[in-house]
């Protein structure tokens, strides 16, 4: 969009007006991109912005419908992964592309001519040379399934180097790494571009883009909405770059979009609690901690947060309340005891649970979007009559929900697993917040969602509380809890170690509780 000053001959690969359509969606809309040696070119965009499609076309998995790809200044259709490799385009995909049952060396040898014996000695020398220059260690004879994700990623990068790649594409490569691993990857990318390689680095994290990039292109809903060239990149500080990117991505300037601190609505403390939990306990199992003497209550319109490190019994608490897990103790909904009731009956009475396992237990991936809205009402009128599905009624109501909750789906018939995480979450929100909800348990409601969907989900939860529902919000994201809850309880080892009102000093008090100090 903004590289009129540069001659396209410098580009290793250039995209000109590339468009790719899928049924119901324009994944890439007339995208221009120039990729140069010695540069980390960051492709930044949220889930569904079209980053993966773009990579698919560069790596030969998909072909553009319109526009063209130039390699070394000449138009060159990339028709297969083999051809992409031959052109010097190596890709490290978001999901690891190594055969887990083979050793590292065997994986690196994959792709040689089939009549040849694998040339192990040659490979060893080549890998030693590459890893030495990059300062990394690759265990050639370890089985891939024994390596950590970070190690596997290094193997994939080395593989691209073994294949003499001139352009290395890293697709969401930091998403599965530890913070330490992300730092290492950043340093590794720097060394690679210093050797003259071109890198395309795909991410949806602003901080990484600012920290690792030389040039940033921002994608939004399939279109490229802006580019920050290296000259400008160097002139700006990290904070300025981030705010510029946020402006490109969201069209409005915010310093940190997540920090939008909302005034927390006050709750009528005199009102009778909607949910009362007294001495709830669950026995520990081999792979899950138990719960012991958990007591709290939530009033109408109140959001109670559960903070804590993941795996301290949060899921057990949610499942014990929803009836999916056997527990002792008392649970009262509007004063009536419900601890002996079934999952379905609790849900009918207004206790809803929005699971964190969206595709596993939240939805049936192969069922259409429309049916997934009513999974918990299968067999019930008006959507089923005498055991027969009322398609028209289901589609009518599902259509309303799709509009109301802004679910981006090609059609009501699309299997729900084909949607992005954010849109699946919208389906779940629509289902659990439907008529009759009184108490809603959210388990990590924004986990794995991009920024726009995170903010939208949080707003839904606030709106629900506003309508007078009682909300239990389980999250491992302290910022999220601080921006939404009235009170925050901290969970450790299956019990609540303290409850803090969300006032000015809440952050430090919750933090102290989380690391095991008294608030």
């Amino acid at each position: 969009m903004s590289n009129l000053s540069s001659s396209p001959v410098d580009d290793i690969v250039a995209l000109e007006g590339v468009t790719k359509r899928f049924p119901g969606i324009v994944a890439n809309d007339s995208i221009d991109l120039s990729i140069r040696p010695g540069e980390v070119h960051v492709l930044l965009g949220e889930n569904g912005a079209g980053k993966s499609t773009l990579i698919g076309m560069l790596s030969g998995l998909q072909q553009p419908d319109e526009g063209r790809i130039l390699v070394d200044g000449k138009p060159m259709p990339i028709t297969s992964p083999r051809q992409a490799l031959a052109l010097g385009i190596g890709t490290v995909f978001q999901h690891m592309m190594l055969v887990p049952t083979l050793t590292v060396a065997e994986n690196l040898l994959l792709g040689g001519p089939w009549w040849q014996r694998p040339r192990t000695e040659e490979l060893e020398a080549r890998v030693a040379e590459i890893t030495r220059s990059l300062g990394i260690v690759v265990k050639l004879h370890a089985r891939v399934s024994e390596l950590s994700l970070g190690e596997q990623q290094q193997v994939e990068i080395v593989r691209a180097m073994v294949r003499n790649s001139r352009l290395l594409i890293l697709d969401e490569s930091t998403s599965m790494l530890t913070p330490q691993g992300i730092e290492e990857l950043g340093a590794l990318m720097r060394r690679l571009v210093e050797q003259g390689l071109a890198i395309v680095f795909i991410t949806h994290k602003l901080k990484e883009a600012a920290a690792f990039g030389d040039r940033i292109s921002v994608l939004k809903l399939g279109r490229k909405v802006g580019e920050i060239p290296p000259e400008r990149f160097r002139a700006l500080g990290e904070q300025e770059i981030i705010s510029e990117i946020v402006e490109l991505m969201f069209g409005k300037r915010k310093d940190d979009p997540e920090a939008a601190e909302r005034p927390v609505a006050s709750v009528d403390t005199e009102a009778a609690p909607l949910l009362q939990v007294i001495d709830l306990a669950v026995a520990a199992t081999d792979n899950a901690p138990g719960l012991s003497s958990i007591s709290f209550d939530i009033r109408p319109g109140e959001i109670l947060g559960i903070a804590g490190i993941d795996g301290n019994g949060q899921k057990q608490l949610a499942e014990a309340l929803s009836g999916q897990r056997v527990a002792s103790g008392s649970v009262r909904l509007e004063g009536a005891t419900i601890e002996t009731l079934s999952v379905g009956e609790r849900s009918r009475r207004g206790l809803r649970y929005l699971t964190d396992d969206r595709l596993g237990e939240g939805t049936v991936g192969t069922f259409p979007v429309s049916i997934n809205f009513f999974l918990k009402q299968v067999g019930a009128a008006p959507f089923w009559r005498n055991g027969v599905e009322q398609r028209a009624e289901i589609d009518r109501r599902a259509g309303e929900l799709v509009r109301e909750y802004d679910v981006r789906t090609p059609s009501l018939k699309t299997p729900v697993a084909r949607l992005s995480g954010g849109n699946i979450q919208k389906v779940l929100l629509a289902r659990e917040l439907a008529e009759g909800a009184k108490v809603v348990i959210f388990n990590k409601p924004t986990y794995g969602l991009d920024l726009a969907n995170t903010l939208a989900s949080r707003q839904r939860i606030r709106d629900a509380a506003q309508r007078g529902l009682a909300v239990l919000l389980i999250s491992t994201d302290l910022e999220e809890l601080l921006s939404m809850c009235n009170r925050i309880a901290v969970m450790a080892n299956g019990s609540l170690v303290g409850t803090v009102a969300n006032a000015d000093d809440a952050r430090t008090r919750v933090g102290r509780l989380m690391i095991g100090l008294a608030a």
Partner: protein
Amino acid sequence: MTGLFSEVFLSALLFGAVTAAIPLLLAGLGEQMSEKAGVLNIGIEGMMLAGAYLGFVGAFYSGSLWLGFLTGAAGGMAVALVMALLCVRIGLNQIVIGIALTLGLEGLTALLHHFQFSRSYPRLPAPNPTVIPTLADIPVIGPAFFKHHLIVYLAVALVVAMGYLYRRTQLGLNLQAAGDKPAALDVAGIDVIRTRTIAVLSTGALAGLGGAYLANVGAGLFIPFITNGAGFLGIVLAMLARGRPVWVLFGALLFGVCLSLTTAMQVAGINIPTDVIQMLPFLAVMMMLVLFGRRASLPAALGIPYERGAR
């Protein structure tokens, strides 16, 4: 007592076991290759039948046993070609197509047999064994293991060759990758469809050869349903062998002993209903599944057609 366990009886029993094991071995090795590459080849029973029929026809009209093996392998491969087209290239369900092929070939070969051979029931002359010098003179073991047709030794040699193929060659790596993580193979620049097609066609050739052996050497004639589940036993063997050809050999020999035992016990005139005796090999299958079924490890992408870029 002495009658039943005499040297002659034992060596005949073992000889029969080897003869019965060879078709299972070939089928098992073939199935193993398909499964390694991620294709569950239920059609293998049909491929064996095609091989048995065409192998017999080839040998009967040409008078050459070797030509019979060749036509048998070609017959198995022809059926495999259909399987490869439908299941690998187009990506149809492997189980449904496999069953359809097996049922179709059962009917087709029975029909052809009815027209061609049902009046005359022609037989092939007994094959000339290749006697291995000195080894064949060992009592019991000699006549049992070293007086077989040359193809038997070749089949056993194939076990070693397959082991080498899987462990030491590029094609072996490609096959395993096609079964465990086809997408990784694809992005490494190797055509998954082609790799799997090669595997399925090889399976067909091996199964066809096994069928031809069964008809030409084992029985000396062709009758409908002659394979009697040998292909399915091959599937069991391949699943239990964990990708190791040598385990297919051991398994095939074990089943071979059971099959041979049924014949031997009938000949020996033991006073047990024949139906019970004939049940023996299949009881052995169930025993093996109970004992070793848990250690079967199958490729991650087994049975899943590969489609580039699908999620």
